[in-house]
């Protein structure tokens, strides 16, 4: 095979930012071709998606509602990826966060939001963090592959939640349907104006600010980056990478847990089965977001809002142009496909060789 991949000696900084932009555009172009094949005008479809999601106040509010859990999960995943810890478990950590927050409500407490909401935030973050610390601990002690452990724990968390809403926490007046009672007023997050945008968005933006300073301005952030880029060098420099893995995963899981807490206390107002949409779950979409965002907290915020727009706009074109539901999922998958492909090209170069390689 005369075509070969060769590692680039230095990575182009420009390419680093060009790849995500290009991959989004290419994904839109390829899905546009698919739309054309079904007889739909892709420019009209994209125009309609964009104007509904970003051109109306109702649409944009809903975009922010969608973006809230995505930002929180995306930040958590991003931080873990920064030190090359492949946390695929945001979905499970989100469910455990939702469970922890609900546990506070299920004590029967019906108090002031000034006390209940902080308690739910703390409970949600702790539960998410514990769920993330299990694979972190297994990695540190036994060198278990975290991709597998974090992924499998997602199913455990989802079943854990299911057990409670089918059993002890089920609302006796729900005719047997698996859901808790609606949360009391004190356990509901403040909403802004007439919209469904809630306090969770403030949590998400605060988290982005904190992570930015941790990552870019602190010594610890530097350690994380070094450990991610070159674990051996980090060890030689006397950095405690075991401790850092545990810390990073506690924060990562805590953020996903906060996403779960804010989604049920801000939007669902009860614990039920589908707290994360099963077509494109928040915890998995966060992985795409972290990649696209180039491990930059502001990037996570920006990409989450764009993803939110893709959902809300996608729902609109389902209604107005009768496009199938899978259309948005195809765009999402294509974006990830091109980002990963582009990443390879930015790290390696494609070389055409006439002569056979030595020894080959």
């Amino acid at each position: 095979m005369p075509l070969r991949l060769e590692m680039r000696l230095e990575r182009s900084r420009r390419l680093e930012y060009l790849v995500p932009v290009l991959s989004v555009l290419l994904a839109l172009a390829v899905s546009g071709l698919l739309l054309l094949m079904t007889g739909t005008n892709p420019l009209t479809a994209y125009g309609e998606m964009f104007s509904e999601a970003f051109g109306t106040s109702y649409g944009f509010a809903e975009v922010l509602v969608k973006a809230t859990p995505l930002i929180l999960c995306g930040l958590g995943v991003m931080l873990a990826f920064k030190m090359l810890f492949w946390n695929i478990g945001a979905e499970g950590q989100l469910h455990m966060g939702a469970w922890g927050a609900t546990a506070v409500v299920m004590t029967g407490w019906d108090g002031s939001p000034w006390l209940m909401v902080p308690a739910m935030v703390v409970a949600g973050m702790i539960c998410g963090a514990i769920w993330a610390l299990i694979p972190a601990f297994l990695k540190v002690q036994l060198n278990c592959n975290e991709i597998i452990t974090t992924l499998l724990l997602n199913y455990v968390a989802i079943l854990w939640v299911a057990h409670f809403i089918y059993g002890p926490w089920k609302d006796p007046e729900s005719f047997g349907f698996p859901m808790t009672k609606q949360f009391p007023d004190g356990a509901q997050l403040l909403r802004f104006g007439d919209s469904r945008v809630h306090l969770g968005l403030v949590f998400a933006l605060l988290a982005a600010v904190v992570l930015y300073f941790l990552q870019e301005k602190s010594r610890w952030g530097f350690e994380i980056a070094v450990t991610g880029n070159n674990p051996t060098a980090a060890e030689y420099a006397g950095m405690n990478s075991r401790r850092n893995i545990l810390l990073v995963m506690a924060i990562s899981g805590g953020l996903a847990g906060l996403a779960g807490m804010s989604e049920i206390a801000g939007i669902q107002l009860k614990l039920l089965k589908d707290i994360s949409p099963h077509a494109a779950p928040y915890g998995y979409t966060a992985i795409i977001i972290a990649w696209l965002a180039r491990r930059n907290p502001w990037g996570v915020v920006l990409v989450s809002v764009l993803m939110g727009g893709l959902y809300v706009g996608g729902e609109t074109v389902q209604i107005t142009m009768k496009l199938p539901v899978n259309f948005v999922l195809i765009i999402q998958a294509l974006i990830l496909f091109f980002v990963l492909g582009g990443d390879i090209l930015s790290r390696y170069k494609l070389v055409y060789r006439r002569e056979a390689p030595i020894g080959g």
Partner: protein
Amino acid sequence: MFRFWKVSASAGAALLLVFVGALLVACGGAEEEGAEERAAEEAAPVRAAFVYVSPVGDAGWTLAHDRGRQAIDALPFVETAYTESVPEGAEAERTINQYVRNGYNLIFTTSFGYMDPTINVAATAPDVTFMHCSGFKVADNVGTYFGRMYQPRYLSGIVAGMMTESNIIGYVAAHPIPEVIRGINAFALGARSVNPEAEVRVIWTQTWFDPAKEREAAESLLDVGADVIAQHQDTPGPQQAAEERGKFSIGYNEDMSSFAPAAHLTAPIWDWSVIYERVANEVNDGTWSSYQYWGGLEDGVVGLAPFNDAVPQEVRDAVEAKRAMIASGEWDVFTGPINDQDGNEIVAEGVTMSDGDMLGMRFFVEGVVGTIPESE
């Protein structure tokens, strides 16, 4: 290094240009057509929207609703639209709201989990008519509709009870909610009305739509000797399992015989066009006002799929006799004496259970082997 970047970037840009160019060229014609079509549609006085919980291609629940939608779409004064795979819970509010914002004046929400979202959006849209399938909350502009599926379930139980040789009938159950429990009980009552030796073994999958899991559940029932498999999910997985083992099966929602031509004996099925046509006409005439519809065999909103050739005439006759009794209102399925699994009398002889008791049903009748997962 830099040169290579330049090359690949310009190649990328060129590729992009080609794509965009191709799109632009191809778009010219489509534009006017679309506008015309939309203008024509806006003239329809009834714009009906459907919110679906699974894809139209699920071969079950949503497909049955979509057939109903197609039936009213054919009416001259109706135009329809639908959204598939809408998550249950608060997420659905946005979808329902978008239909309101796009000028739809009749919205059908076709799963239980849309109950609160439907009520919430309806409160902000008093001029829009909402019909929620299978729920119990109503408002001035929100009605509910459902069918007495337990009636054809009972009839399919007669078929299973007469066809079984091992006297073990498998039932792959979805979620432990009253609707599903009612179906299992009706099925068991039907089977044991013709075969007192028959038992109905239940496995819960806790899914509505998981082809692999539902199929596995059916396989484990076949392993313990079941020779007829019934189901309450929206996929044909259990049917295929029965077909492969050369046993019989009873479908659900839709005629599933194309998935299991030899096994599929019949199926209790929905015909939603009955209620959809009625509501569309009422909204068109301006005569609609909120109500709760729970129709049965007499309306045709529920029924039985055509019998397999393997079903002998005596079985068909037995089914027909009971069907006539139910449809005429002479007798209904949950008429005593009915005992629970432990032999305690729940419904006395000659007494018929009330709709309220049926809607909240939480026990298994005698002859059902299995437990209702519950801990309250």
